[in-house]
């Protein structure tokens, strides 16, 4: 116990000393020493994308030793567990991955993050990163993280084979009655209209989120999140009813599949559409050898110009030894060339609106355009909203219960209570 405390205070002292040193160092001096980059990116494309940042940071700072300390498993939950232990022990890595919004806020409350507001100003990042995204990383007027890229959570992937067989066409903005008509046609042809793999509830929660955003619009969704609008609104009720109906149109084995299983079913054409974050894009192209525009197309429930954001961000540990190294890594992440290289591999859209996206895939170009110019709202399912992580969990739990009891009222009441407790 005693030892741990001494270690913390020594680390804190070093951090203060180093922070002072950073402040007085010349602006463009390359960082030296060692840094540790902590993330949950270990699978193929994720790891490759992370390596793109690491090699760029290495090229810009030849004397900096960068250690990739990724922890696999549980969509980041395992990594968070390891990180929580390390933070409790006063052993913070220089750079670690976290979601903007509630999760970031939790770290801010624990006072373990380095304030990056000054870097945002000196590098002009405020001008190129969409303001809603900066807001999701800003607490008490201080900005705490940098985004590597932004995924879109409300994309509806449509199987061309299913469309052809059922004689329907789904593209652009789709309202519920259009979708219902198409779904019934698909059903008549023996196609399950909705591909779903909700062994893990977030996929179903994401479908409902897309439906609520469609009914409520961007401003309505934000009002639901900040508590200025009740979840008992007409729009939410309609969306929940639509969701209940949609659940009768899914593949029968949906509870036994995960999201990749649903994408595989879409690729096969046994089901019609899959509402899934655009990490499914890489899955369709690479794993299933499908061609964008030929084998699959995409549409959006509600306004196609509304982008539900899922950003991946990195923060600098306040008590970590090498603050200058952390800042150098953050600068590498925000480098326009790195943004392009990273997002090409990861399948997301660059967070900087000044990056040319011509070399990205057709879908990604469109997504980047909507991100830069459309309406941006945070995903609650993926913990991007500025509400406590517990609200996200309450939402996931409410969707789990909704699947069994189908009660619109219980769902809306539970969500009002969760937002009120926030």
């Amino acid at each position: 116990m005693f030892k741990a405390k001494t270690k913390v205070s020594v680390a804190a002292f070093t951090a203060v000393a180093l922070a002072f040193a950073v402040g007085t160092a010349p602006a463009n001096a390359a960082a030296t020493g060692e840094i540790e980059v902590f993330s949950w990116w270990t699978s193929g494309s994720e790891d490759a994308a992370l390596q793109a940042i690491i090699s760029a940071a290495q090229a810009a700072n030849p004397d900096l030793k960068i250690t990739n300390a990724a922890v696999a498993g549980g969509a980041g939950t395992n990594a968070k567990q390891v990180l929580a232990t390390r933070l409790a022990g006063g052993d913070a890595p220089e750079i670690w991955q976290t979601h903007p919004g509630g999760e970031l806020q939790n770290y801010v409350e624990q006072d373990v993050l380095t304030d990056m507001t000054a870097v945002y100003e000196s590098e002009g990042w405020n001008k190129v990163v969409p303001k809603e995204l900066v807001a999701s990383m800003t607490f008490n007027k201080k900005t705490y993280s940098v985004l590597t890229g932004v995924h879109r959570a409300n994309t509806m992937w449509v199987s061309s084979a299913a469309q052809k067989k059922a004689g329907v066409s789904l593209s652009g903005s789709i309202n519920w009655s259009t979708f219902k008509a198409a779904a019934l046609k698909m059903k008549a042809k023996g196609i399950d209209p909705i591909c779903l793999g909700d062994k893990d509830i977030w996929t179903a929660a994401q479908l409902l989120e897309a439906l609520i955003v469609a009914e409520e619009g961007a401003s309505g969704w934000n009002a639901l999140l900040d508590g200025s609008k009740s979840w008992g609104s007409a729009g939410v009720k309609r969306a929940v009813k639509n969701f209940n109906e949609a659940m009768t149109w899914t593949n029968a084995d949906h509870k036994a599949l995960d999201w990749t299983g649903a994408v595989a079913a879409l690729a096969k054409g046994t089901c019609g559409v899959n509402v899934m974050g655009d990490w499914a894009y890489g899955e369709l192209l690479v794993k299933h050898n499908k061609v964008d525009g030929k084998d699959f197309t995409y549409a959006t429930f509600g306004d196609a110009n509304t982008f539900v954001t899922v950003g991946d961000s990195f923060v600098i540990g306040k008590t970590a030894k090498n603050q200058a190294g952390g800042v150098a890594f953050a600068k590498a992440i925000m480098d326009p060339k790195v943004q392009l290289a990273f997002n090409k591999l990861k399948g997301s859209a660059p967070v900087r609106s000044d990056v040319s996206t011509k070399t990205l895939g057709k879908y990604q170009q469109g997504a980047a355009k909507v991100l830069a110019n459309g309406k941006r709202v945070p995903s609650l399912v993926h913990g991007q909203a500025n509400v406590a992580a517990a609200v996200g969990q309450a939402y996931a739990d409410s969707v789990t219960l909704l699947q069994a009891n189908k009660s619109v009222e219980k769902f809306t009441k539970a969500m009002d209570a969760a937002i009120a407790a926030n």
Partner: protein
Amino acid sequence: MSQVRGKSYPPVKRKKRGGDTKAALLLLPSFLIVSVFVYVFITYTIGVSLAENWMPAKPSMAQGPDPFATYKNLFENPRFQSDLRNSFIFTVLFLLLTVIAGFFIALAVHNMGRTKGFFRGVFLLPYALSFIVTGVVWRWLFNPDSGVNLFLKYSGVASAYKSITGEELRPEWLTSATTVGDISALLEKIIPGGQYIQVEMGIPLALIPVVIATSWQLLGFAMAMFLAGLVSIPEELREASMMDGATGSRYYRSIAVPMLAPIAITTLVILTHVALKIFDLIYAMSGSGIGFATDMPGIFVYESMYKALKYNTGAAASIVMLIIVCIVVVPYLIHSNRETNGR
């Protein structure tokens, strides 16, 4: 029964005091380590569960106006109510299936001739697998579009069922949202505070595949325990009973089963604590299930801690789990302690 045991295990004489001191010195290091890593941390976890907002890098033990508010919210949470129900039902069904099937398989294997070793291996093998492997495999077996349902279809069972009842035989298994035998209304009447029950207090059908998978894995363990017990029954007892005119089944009912009772109790206690703490198999096989049909307290603790970042809720739920396990294990420990001390 006690007479029989008296014969086979003569009471051990108490050792001299000097032996006790030496033993105590030998045990001291592990006692200290266990104290810190088990009991100190249990106490710490209780502290976290009563604290208002404990966080890893800001470990504040400050309590809110009502330190027990976390526990109150926990018991009112429909998810945790489902978890307690599931844990209870899962444990009961799993114990019944595993212990009964394990006993009969042990009997069968015990009476095998030269193939005894082979069959022992066959039934023990699943026990060597990881829970995660079992979970993933059985998820596919109980997928309504593959596995068991294909067997029903191609074996003709499904069509026979249809021709008799006129209904389709296509069990939903893990994807079922049905709960049978709901007694919530009854509980509401007899338990004070019963109106807080927000879930159907019945048997969620989706739990049954999970019970089957877990039993399949641990059947080998129960069998091995009973086999060891059967082997330890002296052959003379069997011969003597036969001389007295007992038939095979009479021998098992009146001699073998009573003599296996201590083994059955040990097996039950070990399997109960496995069932109460089950996490990985269910996490891999079905997750929380529709409407938390297959959720367990262990999954709740994990998600409260590292997804919802509600450390006090997670800590409170783990303390509740600890208390439930203690209710089963402590009486057993006291009982076996008395026995080893010669009563």
